[in-house]
């Protein structure tokens, strides 16, 4: 899953730790989300959308692989 978290966080002038504080998660989690190593659960995705005052669809873009149904 691709996302715009890093760009949006930088636009707000926030550190990873500050975003982590807003979300109630660890800084590592924010780092893993930004680098695409981890896709958030639905509740965390909604918290992200609320923090950035946007929608989940605006934050996350599924790749072709994400949309492909498992064989």
């Amino acid at each position, binding site marked *: 899953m691709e996302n715009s978290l890093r760009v949006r966080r930088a636009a707000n002038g926030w550190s*990873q730790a500050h975003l982590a504080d807003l979300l109630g998660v660890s*800084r590592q989690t924010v780092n893993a989300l930004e680098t695409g190593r*981890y896709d958030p659960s639905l509740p965390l995705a909604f918290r992200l959308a609320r923090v950035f005052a946007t929608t989940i669809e605006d934050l996350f873009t599924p790749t072709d692989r994400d949309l492909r149904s498992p064989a």
Partner: protein
Amino acid sequence: MTNAHSTTSSPNRGPRLSAADKHQRDRYLREFIPAIVTFWILLAVVLNTVDEQTYGARLWVLLPVLPMIGVAVALYRAVQRADEYGRVVLLECMALGFGAAMVASLALGFLGIIGEAWTFGGWLVLGIGMTTWTGSLLVRNLR
């Protein structure tokens, strides 16, 4: 929610730990340290006082296992307190450590079949499991 964080040291990464990180670390250390310190004290006492000839030696030598129950509880609570990504990392690394310990114990078991019984085999299994677990955790945390 566009106000910048007051303690931000760098707009890119900033402090290494969030409030959730610090809370989890502090709670874990508060539970882990007393248990592990008690373990080392009891281990030192047992190693210096155990008399293998006495009737109660078997019970006495098992005394350091008791505080390790506290360590296990601290680890269990750490997993419970971790956020969703932290829990995935912890459990994946525990699975690696568990797998390594199982392979080591299986190898020792097979060696036992041909009479190669190692007195300190249990410590070897513990060491391999712990090293794999903590090593994989360190590697994951470095990323």
